[in-house]
């Protein structure tokens, strides 16, 4: 079963950015993360019947991503997918701070075990539920809970993230919506 063009494009556009970023948090380089996300979405295309019939397409997609990264299949990627447009240019801002946040967080994640890291990213970045994560990783829900709890405890003990907390607390403010008259 092949997907309808528009349906597949909507599916890809809705998930691509988060898949790439999740793959980075799983430990991939940016290039490998894009390859892993693209390979995941191609696999979804070739198994569209299962994706469409799935009660939870997102759990299915992230199972493919996690398994693909775990098995190192991204390394066998041979088909390069060129872009028509170059990525959006980097924001002009405190570049040193941005790099510091990314590197510090990734370094802290790298010190966690692979399993704890997977749970943490799926739960707190992708926003999957514990049940969905259990489905993605093929583990019990209780195991998801305990891994997440141990991962957060480990990050707390790590201490390297503490000084970032006030900065990140400032983000996510959704009260800053533009007024219509500003548009």
């Amino acid at each position, binding site marked *: 079963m*092949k997907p309808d*063009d*528009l*349906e*597949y*494009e*909507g*599916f*890809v*556009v*809705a*998930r*691509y*950015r988060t898949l790439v*970023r999740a793959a980075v*948090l799983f430990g991939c380089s*940016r290039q490998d993360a*894009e390859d892993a996300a*693209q390979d995941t*979405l*191609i696999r979804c*295309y*070739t198994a569209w*019947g299962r*994706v*469409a*019939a799935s009660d939870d*397409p997102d759990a299915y997609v992230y199972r493919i991503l996690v398994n693909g990264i775990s098995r190192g299949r991204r390394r066998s990627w041979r088909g390069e*997918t*060129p*872009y028509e*447009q170059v*990525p*959006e240019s*980097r*924001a002009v*801002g405190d570049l040193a701070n*941005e790099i510091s*946040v*990314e590197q510090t*967080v990734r370094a802290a994640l790298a010190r966690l075990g692979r399993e704890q890291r997977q749970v*943490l990213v799926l739960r*707190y*970045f992708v*926003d999957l539920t514990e049940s969905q994560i259990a489905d993605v990783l093929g583990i019990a829900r209780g195991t998801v809970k305990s891994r997440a709890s141990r991962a*957060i405890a480990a990050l*707390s003990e790590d201490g390297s993230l503490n000084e970032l*907390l006030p900065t*990140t*607390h400032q*983000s*996510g*403010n*959704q009260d*800053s*919506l*533009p007024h*219509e008259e*500003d*548009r």
Partner: protein
Amino acid sequence: MIHDEDVSALLRAATDDIDVAIAPADRLAEAGDRRLRRRRVVAVAGGAAVVALVIAGISLTTGLRPDPAAPTSTPRTTAVQPVGCVMNVPSQVLPLWARSGFSEPRPRIAYVSGQRGYIIAILFGQPLNAPPAADHNNKILWVPSPEVEGDTAAATGSPDLLITARLANGSATVTRTVSGGPGPSIIDLPEPGCWHLTLQWSGHTDDLALWYAAR
């Protein structure tokens, strides 16, 4: 002590500035088609080998012929759910070109990008509902990319934003118009489900999918 919400904020802060190019959906579909074709070739070759073996086997036995009246297997039918939409669009930092009018330097809000990257739909109230919810309306701010905004060569046709919305299962198609082109709007649609929107303004076209939840 790090709390759940801290982890969430840290992970997002660590990835906000990762530049991700527009999803190359058409090329992924082409790659998917190639894989499917390869599989078919392998399956046909394998099937031919099996048939050859079966024929060879039948020729060695007697009286074993398939019963033409025997029932054949019925294809399994499964309800196909719309998957082109995201029910809860995650909040993300807006692209640089879409931040005008926001007081935060790096505003984070739910938005959906057009598949060509020419426009984004910023969702002010989630979920979008059909019929509209009592506590919030289906407010969408349409922001065109500067790449097409300044493209005077293509600036023909209606300056209004014309929206053709098609329910994913094809059961309904409606049109909406945002006067004056991309900007703030209330887009109510007649039924809940995954809607594919074709957007046309000033000679430009883009498409995206939005999920409208039942109230």
